[in-house]
């Protein structure tokens, strides 16, 4: 059993970490007082009078169902493969978690500061999730599968906005129009990712500095790095 001072120190840190921003100051102080009462009064009293050892308070670190936050990984230069995941796509991304780059317009529609709308749709269920499928390689996918160097959704949204801005200004862009689609191929003039998929693997995953952006009006359909 840990000594009372150790137990209290561990517990105080745990309570403060867990409740930060979620409980009022009064509730947090109440929790700490209850812990002090248990460790300094109840535990010794039970041992003295009844001869039983009450269990030590557990160390509280992070909730078991929530992984510890990690700092954003540095841009990768080696292929990240989605082959190990059953779906071949990254974990679900919620556009509501990106308030700095996307504004909620309701009914699942999120608008970027560059004026593009990410809506429901695609086999992933939302266009942002569809775009984020390009942050992992799919080595068995037929043809080219462009993979962004970053896997940070906010950074991907900003990159797409940057390409859209260039396309609207008619800079560094070739444009193709189909009945229901506008397809921009934009030269970002710096590496933004690499070519994966079967064809990319055959060529040794060459780097990509172009972004293909397929839109329908202002709705994003898909976007990914490519080599034209």
């Amino acid at each position, binding site marked *: 059993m840990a000594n009372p001072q150790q137990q209290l120190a561990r517990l105080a840190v745990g309570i403060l970490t867990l409740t930060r921003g979620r409980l009022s100051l009064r509730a947090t102080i109440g929790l700490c007082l209850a812990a002090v009462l248990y460790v300094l009064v109840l535990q010794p009293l039970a041992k003295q009078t009844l001869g039983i050892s009450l269990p030590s308070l557990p160390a509280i670190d992070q909730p078991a169902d929530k992984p510890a936050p990690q700092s954003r990984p540095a841009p990768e230069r080696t292929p990240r493969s989605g082959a190990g995941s059953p779906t071949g796509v990254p974990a679900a991304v919620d556009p509501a978690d990106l308030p700095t780059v996307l504004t909620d317009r309701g009914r699942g529609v999120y608008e970027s500061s560059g004026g593009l709308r990410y809506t429901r749709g695609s086999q992933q*269920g939302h266009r942002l999730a569809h775009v984020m499928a390009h942050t992992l390689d799919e080595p068995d996918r037929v043809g080219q599968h462009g993979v962004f160097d970053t896997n940070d959704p906010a950074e991907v949204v900003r990159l797409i906005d940057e390409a859209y801005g260039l396309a609207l200004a008619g800079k560094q862009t070739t444009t193709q129009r189909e009945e229901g689609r506008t397809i921009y191929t934009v030269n970002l003039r710096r590496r933004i990712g690499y070519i994966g998929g079967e064809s990319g693997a055959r060529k040794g995953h060459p780097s990509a500095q172009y972004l*293909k952006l397929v839109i329908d009006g202002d709705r994003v359909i898909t976007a990914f790095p490519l080599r034209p």
Partner: protein
Amino acid sequence: MLSIGICPVCAAGPLGLRQCGVCRRVVVLCDECDVAWRTDDPTRPGSYGQETMPCPGCSADLWTAGATWATREAVAATPWLVKHLPTLVESPAREPQR
């Protein structure tokens, strides 16, 4: 997923063969840019997905409504696709995440 080439619209997605869950037609579908055609002639008008992916035959959603990637048997039973049987490319399918 069985495919017959690369999409002429986005130049990246495979042209997969999808069987509609409602009209049971086998259609050509790019799962990258969500465009579908009734036949293997992409110069003919296609259907364009937005929130759903309408079947070019009956407009049912090709991502739900019981649609699946077509089997070789379904391809063999589709007259305009028979000529593609010897050259079909088979690759792992992305399954709809809804």
